């Protein structure tokens, strides 16, 4: 499953449109991840404050969303463009790839919540594919 040229345009346009609220999207998505899927807190045990609206979670959500935007800019070569991030996730963070899927779901729930009119089924499928390919690129260096 790869992105068609049309889908790449859809993804780039949509993320550009919502970019002014990207921090909010990231913070909200990560908050949801740890509330809806409490097992994901295991990756953040070193934080003193694991409350969904606390500073560490919100700050990290912003960081993660920054990564998503970086991937959008490298949409033509995700594996190559995200090499460093992949190495980080593979050798340092060692996040089980199943979590990429559930974070993608949380991101899309937030997009749907905040941009109900814009997040049409056609945009949903393109974004879903993009996030799945992003996850694949992140797992590139795992083994």
């Amino acid at each position, binding site marked *: 499953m790869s992105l068609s040229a049309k889908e790449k345009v859809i993804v780039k346009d949509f993320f550009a449109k919502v970019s002014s609220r990207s921090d909010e999207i990231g913070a909200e998505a990560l908050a949801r991840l740890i509330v809806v899927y409490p097992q994901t807190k295991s990756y953040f045990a070193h934080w003193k404050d694991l409350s969904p609206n606390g500073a560490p979670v919100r700050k990290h959500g912003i960081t993660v969303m920054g990564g998503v935007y970086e991937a959008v800019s490298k949409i033509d070569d995700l594996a190559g463009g995200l090499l460093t991030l992949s190495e980080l996730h593979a050798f340092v963070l060692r996040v089980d790839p199943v979590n990429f899927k559930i974070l993608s779901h949380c991101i899309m729930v937030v997009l749907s919540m905040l941009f109900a009119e814009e997040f049409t*089924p056609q945009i949903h*499928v393109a974004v879903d594919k993009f996030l799945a390919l992003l996850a694949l690129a992140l797992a590139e260096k795992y083994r």
Partner: protein
Amino acid sequence: MVVWTDEERAAISDIFSKLDYDDVGPKCLSRCLIVYPWTQRYFGAFGNLYNAEAIMNNPLIAKHGTTVLRGLERALKNMDDIKNTYAELSILHSEKLRVDPDNFKLLSDCLTIVIAAKMGTAFTPEYQASFQKFLSVVVSALGRQYH
């Protein structure tokens, strides 16, 4: 035995109380068919599914979306025994409809996204957690009679 907290029951009731079945049902099913096109395999007799617009305007799909969502009401009314409430529906999906149970999860993800669109920020993380727990119990019950 599924244990529901008072907060979870309240959240799930609240979500369903605000639900317009004739709107959310069609939106949910058509979104599933668009986002996960392989699910169209079960709808060969439903007419034009050629593209997203056709799917979203297809009256048979819309009607069926409402039917599916009404099915969820049964679980809502029998939250303490969804497993047995759904025994018959599970056999139907397994023996007659022959739906791959993985598809139930795809449809429930689409439903979550449609509900999020309708409720906006009222769909809090806690509401999402309760709702997804409810849906996973339903999905599990639906898959139970498969062999």
